[in-house]
């Protein structure tokens, strides 16, 4: 691993080698352009948390934890529970990950994953109300990246979705005096769907999925599509500074739609959903 703090660095020879292979539709690890690395999801790894999931996508490792607390609702949505998604790339994750508050990359990551969960209405927030205007459940999802090897957006999204889909929270009720009381009942969060995120990357004219860190050094632009599990798009985010042509975007949507079905099935199987 390059100890240089300049960011992840690979030699030009390796870059040329990868570019030559990509021109023939090949990659160094023998994957096809649209193949994901082995995806492994373990849920319930943090028993104290209401929900948790550890995702390994190749060597990219991410852990998401769900904590559910009772809180006041937002003033403009008195009849809805709260959902807060936070992401942190830990200094453990790579030689150039610094400790400190989330930078613009980590904040973008958190917000894009949040968008996918929120816009798909994965969680029925109206069902997370104890007393409208006064007491609602607040669902916190915190994601920690433990090791970076490419494709953080997808790995993070799968961890968040898996943790939420398998979370169990303690129910509270109101006493006759209108006070909050903990019960000993636990329930799964009201899950309506499982959103799936697929990120496509452009290297020159080649579109590929799930690059590792070496391949990401060649990436000129990325495009994340999140599907709501009902056939609709519920979030999109372009990143990188070189953009896409319209044709490429249309091509990517088709690729992503098919891939979302495949990955969605895998994810649902591994977490025992539906």
């Amino acid at each position, binding site marked *: *691993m390059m*100890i240089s*703090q300049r960011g992840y660095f690979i030699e030009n020879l390796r870059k040329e080698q990868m570019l030559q292979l990509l021109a023939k539709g090949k990659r160094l690890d023998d994957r096809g352009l649209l193949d994901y690395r082995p995806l492994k999801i373990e849920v319930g*790894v*943090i*028993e*104290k*948390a209401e929900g*948790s999931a550890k995702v390994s996508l190749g*060597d990219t*490792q991410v*852990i998401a*934890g*769900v*904590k559910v*607390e009772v809180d006041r609702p937002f003033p403009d949505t008195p009849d809805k529970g709260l959902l807060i998604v*936070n992401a*942190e790339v*830990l*200094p*453990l*994750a*790579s*030689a150039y990950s610094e*400790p400190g*508050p989330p930078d613009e990359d980590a904040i973008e990551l958190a917000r894009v994953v949040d968008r996918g969960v929120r816009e798909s209405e994965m969680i029925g927030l109206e069902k997370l109300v104890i007393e409208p205007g006064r007491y609602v459940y607040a669902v*916190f999802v*915190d994601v*920690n990246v*433990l*090791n*970076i*090897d490419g494709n953080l957006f997808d790995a993070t999204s799968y961890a968040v979705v898996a943790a939420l889909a398998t979370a169990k929270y303690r129910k509270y009720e109101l006493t006759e005096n209108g006070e909050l009381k903990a019960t000993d009942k636990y329930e799964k969060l009201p899950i309506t769907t499982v959103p799936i995120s697929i990120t496509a990357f452009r290297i020159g004219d080649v579109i590929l999925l799930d690059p590792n860190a070496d391949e990401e050094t060649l990436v000129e632009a990325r495009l994340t599509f999140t599907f709501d599990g009902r056939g609709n798009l519920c979030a999109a985010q372009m990143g990188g500074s070189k953009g896409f042509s319209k044709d490429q975007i249309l091509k990517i949507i088709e690729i992503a739609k098919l891939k979302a079905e495949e990955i969605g099935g895998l994810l649902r199987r591994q977490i025992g959903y539906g």
Partner: protein
Amino acid sequence: MDDKLGKLIDEEGRRVDGRKFNELRPIKIEVGVLKNADGSAYIEHGGNKIVVAIYGPKETHPKFMALPDRAILRCRYHMAPYSTEERKPPQPSRREIELSKVIREALEPAVKLEEFPRTAIDVYIEVLQSDGGSRGAGITAASVALADAGIPMRDLVVGCAAGKVDGQIVLDLNDLEDKEGEADLPVAIMPNIGQITLLQMDGLLTIDEFKKALDLAIEGCRKIHQIQREALYRKYFGTSEAEGK
């Protein structure tokens, strides 16, 4: 105080999790769990789940922090928001900052810092789940991670706590005992050299109780040291220590 009928220890001397006064919780250590880090380790100690990454030695940034004759050891002890009963905000708390310092000071005597002047060695301890005694478990895993990174060390470092619960001196307090007990004494040692590198106490102990607790904690450290050795033997020599001789 009627210690035999306390709610944390029953008449037979069994604690809430069934342990006797001098029993450790189950411990498991894995070496080399993160690909990018120069060295890494993962520990489960009771309900504690902690991952440690080492980066270094490497150039010190910012440069003015570098020392001319040795490396600096930097340590960050951090608890994930989902690691505790109630969610903990991600920003470092005063407790985490204090623990980062005492853990660094517990590891420093063991590391041969003079070998790498002007560099920094970073120790990142992330508590994924916390269950009492996390600083000791963090130290135990950190020293294994340092060995995994091939950083020269005078000795491994091991951490363990003892304390007083329901009037009795016991080893390795879990979360409940830590919160409800009368005293907590975390300790870390370099086992082969025999030096104590971390000592903290809070609560109420007589001098005699302190001595008993200290002895018990050191005994616990030595037992955990064997688990460290086994983990390193398995990873590096492909055998258990007993077989390898």
